[in-house]
């Protein structure tokens, strides 16, 4: 068994994302000046270093969480949101030890986050204060979720 490493698999629809569009509509109704919302599923795995490459390959072929025909997959070697992103997760989430029900050698645990980016009319990230407001008033229920920036 080798040292554990973290992997973040950021999976984003490349076809129209109806959920993101609904969120955008709600944000507009709330009076928040946002031009686009981008939603991603983020799977954060803790895996033995020796098996990290194999896990990368498994994620890319298990089509229940990633389908190359409709998703973009970004593999990150750290589990931190990028500037402009907020990750939403439940306080009491229990890590799973399988990926979509499949056992993957070396996997120690995997958790899910929902990532949001909000963009202005130029396609740039909205100011942090606006993202915070959208997060606290809609994207995240602080009674059972937390927002990671």
């Amino acid at each position, binding site marked *: 068994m080798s040292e554990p490493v973290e992997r973040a698999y950021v999976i984003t629809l490349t076809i129209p994302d*109806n*959920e993101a569009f*609904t*969120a955008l509509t*709600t944000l507009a*109704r*709330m009076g928040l000046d946002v031009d686009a919302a981008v939603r991603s599923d983020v799977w954060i795995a803790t895996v033995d270093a020796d098996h990290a490459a194999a896990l990368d390959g498994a994620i890319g072929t298990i089509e229940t969480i990633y389908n190359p025909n409709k998703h973009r997959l970004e593999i990150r070697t750290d589990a931190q949101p990028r500037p402009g992103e907020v990750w939403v997760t*439940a*306080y*009491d989430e229990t890590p799973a030890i399988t990926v979509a029900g499949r056992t993957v050698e070396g996997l120690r645990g995997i958790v899910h986050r929902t990532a949001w980016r909000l963009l202005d009319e130029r396609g740039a990230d909205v100011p942090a204060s606006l993202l915070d407001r959208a997060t*606290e*008033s*809609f*994207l995240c*229920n*602080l*009674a*059972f*979720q937390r927002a990671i920036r």
Partner: protein
Amino acid sequence: MTARVAVVLFPGTNSEDETQRALAAAGIAAEIVHWSRGSAALRAFDAFVLPGGFAYEDRVRAGAVAAHDEVMDAVIEGAQAGKFVLGICNGAQVLLEAGLVPGTGPLRRPTAAFAPNAGGKFLSVHVHVRLAVAPERVPLLAGLAAGAVIPAWASHGEGRLAAPATELDLLERDGHAAFVYCNARGEPLPAPNGSAREIAGLTNRAGNVLALMPHPERDGWTFMHRDGDAEKAAARGNAQAMLAPSGGAIFFQAFAAALNATVRTR
């Protein structure tokens, strides 16, 4: 004067018909009102019932998008004016996300959540819930007996009440935890969804808004009772008895009685 009740339909609601029928069986001719008619169409009603199903596919979070819908402005205004508002299952999730229950924080800033069930799976089981507060604490159901036990079907993926411990203490202390899961005799039972403090339903401070996760309307006639139920077994071969309101019907009868009494006094 007859009470006017709106059953508010969001895109994805799927329990409006049985909810309307349960109200009708209790003597209330409710009208189904689509969200797209907007707040203006709702303001003339005396009470609102938000039925179960899914609102906007439960995108972002169950109830979150609907809670911010324009049509909810009228529901919120009505609740603040003392009108009765009942939410069942997804309707309960909407009321919680709208901040109408438990009502301990600002509007549309929920202080609790109906979070994904323990175990993460959709739940479809028969349950009983017990009125856990004095009937007078919930004027919306004033006709219920103390400790009344209501049979219902739990059918949800996100029904586990979750909140910080301090909030849960407050909910119990101030009588917001209106219903808890129990067995058929009203004895405590672990919540099948892992709900905190076994809470199945919440009310607001005034007791005119109630959010209940299980569906009493899905057990409101004898034929709907689960197999093995004594009343259902006794009704076999007797269509009239099988089609008679029973079980969860008492929930709607209490709601109708309280509502009609309120409207008469206006």
